[in-house]
């Protein structure tokens, strides 16, 4: 029955190069070209980040070369008299951003916890689209409302003007909420169900399970959410420009500094770029502010990206 099997002579039918069919070869070329294009598209994102930085440097470098660093980061911003001190603008940005984050973190995390752990399904189906809608409202519309509605209210509370750090922070907080909520909700969702069940099984209430088990395990995701929220807040321009009063001064320390007008870095660029002569020192300084913003957000996002990187990778290729 089982005689020595006959081994066939090799033939070359599988080698496209050796048995050329024109169609096969053409398809090979098309595939090759398309795959190179796709690869190029992917890699171009790195290239674009580089380009953005390059053009900021190209226009902004003179500011760093012509103005002594002491003065560039000094305390006086009077462009008309050639005083280009960025310190008041940096302080303005920091104050507004810190204010926004102080408001947004408790609101955002709590809402994420509610959505992820406590809200019944029907509420989730209403609330999540609403928060998407908030992300969709243009910042100029919120700024407009802040300008015509919120600022007068703040003024009535006793501030000398309604255009203050607090007004800006409040609006910025709501603008960074969608980022914070959606990312922290993902982080809560990623906590394995067994952790909750385990806690409930040893007699914890649902709230204790969330507080003692779920939140700690979602910690790194929540940190990412807050970081991206900060990044979002510090870069926001239009709304902030309209409601923070645009006064380039460093308010004195104290609680009432929240109710003083400031001017942020973003607002300075937006407000003054239209009036400067191209190539002037003032023009370069505005680009230099752009460089500062770029570096800050690049740092925040790279850190967040690195944290995310350690979490990612698991989800891929699991949907067989």
């Amino acid at each position, binding site marked *: 029955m089982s005689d020595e099997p006959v081994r066939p002579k090799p033939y070359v039918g599988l080698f496209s190069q050796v048995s050329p069919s024109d169609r096969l070869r053409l*398809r090979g070329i098309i595939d090759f070209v398309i*795959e190179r294009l796709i690869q190029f*598209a*992917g*890699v171009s994102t*790195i290239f*674009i*980040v580089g380009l*953005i930085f390059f*053009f*900021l440097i190209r226009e902004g470098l003179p500011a760093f070369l012509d103005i002594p660093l002491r003065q560039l980061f000094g305390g006086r911003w009077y462009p008309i008299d050639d005083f280009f001190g960025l310190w008041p603008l940096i302080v303005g940005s920091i104050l507004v951003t810190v204010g926004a984050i102080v408001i947004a973190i408790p*609101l*955002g995390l*709590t*809402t994420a916890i*509610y*959505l992820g752990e*406590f809200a019944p399904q029907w509420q989730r189906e209403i609330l999540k*689209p609403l*928060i*998407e809608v908030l992300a*969709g*409202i*243009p*910042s*100029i*519309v919120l700024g*407009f*409302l802040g*300008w015509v*509605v919120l600022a007068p209210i703040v003024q009535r509370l006793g501030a000398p003007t309604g255009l203050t750090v607090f007004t800006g922070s409040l609006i910025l907080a709501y603008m960074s909420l969608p980022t914070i909520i959606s990312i922290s909700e993902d982080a809560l969702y990623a906590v394995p169900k067994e952790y909750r069940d385990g806690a409930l099984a040893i007699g914890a209430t649902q*709230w204790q399970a969330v507080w003692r088990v779920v939140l700690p395990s979602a910690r790194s995701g929540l940190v990412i959410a807050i970081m991206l929220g900060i*990044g*979002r807040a510090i*870069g926001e*321009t*239009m709304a902030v420009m*309209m409601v923070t009063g645009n006064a380039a001064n460093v308010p004195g320390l104290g609680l009432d500094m929240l109710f003083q007008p400031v001017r942020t870095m*973003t607002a300075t*660029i*937006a407000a003054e*770029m239209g009036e400067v002569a*191209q190539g002037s020192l003032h023009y370069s300084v*505005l680009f230099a502010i*752009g460089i500062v*913003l*770029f570096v800050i*957000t*690049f740092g*925040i*996002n*790279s850190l967040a*990206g*690195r944290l995310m*990187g350690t979490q*990612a*990778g698991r*989800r891929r*290729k699991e*949907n067989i």
Partner: protein
Amino acid sequence: MTRQQAHQLAVGLISAVAALVVIPIVLVILFIIVRGIGTLDWEFITTVPRSGMKEGGIMPAILGTVILTFGTAIACIPLAIGAAIYLAEYARDTRLTRWVRLAIVNLAGIPSIVYGLFGLGAFVLFLNLGTSIIAGSLTLGIMTLPVVISTAEEAILAVPQRFRMVSLSLGATRWQTIRSQVLPQAMPGIITGVILGLSRAAGETAPILFTVSAFYLPRLPHSIFDQTMALPYHLYVISTQVPDMPLSIQYGTALVLMLIVLSLTLIASIVRTKMRRRREW
């Protein structure tokens, strides 16, 4: 206080805070609608501004935003979908891939005003396109890349691996598999991402401040190298730069802008649910 009471107190507080987040959103939308609806008529959306923008309509601004949105789509879609395919289908876990991902996270985080500076330096001045629709579209297109890339990548990854296996096992090449199986199945998700990205672009002001926007240009643009008005910038101008501007026109403009942006968002979510329902696997 018993543990049960503590639990109830916690849940009560949490729901109260959630309400604090959600109620203002509803109020903002209702407020704009109530205050703006009176201004919104056929004349308002079809005529050009008159008497220093204090009368007449906002047609050039509406049209400018529509044109810019299309321009953004053209500038952004090919590159974004290419990059998404690269990440989802081709990229191995190499250093280069990690850099691409980092670049996308960073693109998403760069402030919109910095995109405006980049557009000014790169397109308006270096490429000498001037303040023009094309310069603005390119700027907005690049700003929109990360949103579209991320959603498109998610959509592509969500196509079950077994369809790729089957297609490949039937002798399709990798690209044929992507083109005839993966992309069609991922299309609802990709479209959703594109529309969402465009809705953001349509509402942005900072990137177009120095790249396209005309303060006052009561006519239609002649070509893509022309300036144009745009709704977000127009709202900024009439609310802060023009004294004694009637509030009704300001609210009307805000309402139109909000409606355009939110209807794009709405379309995106309808596409998503409709197509998902049609899916058979």
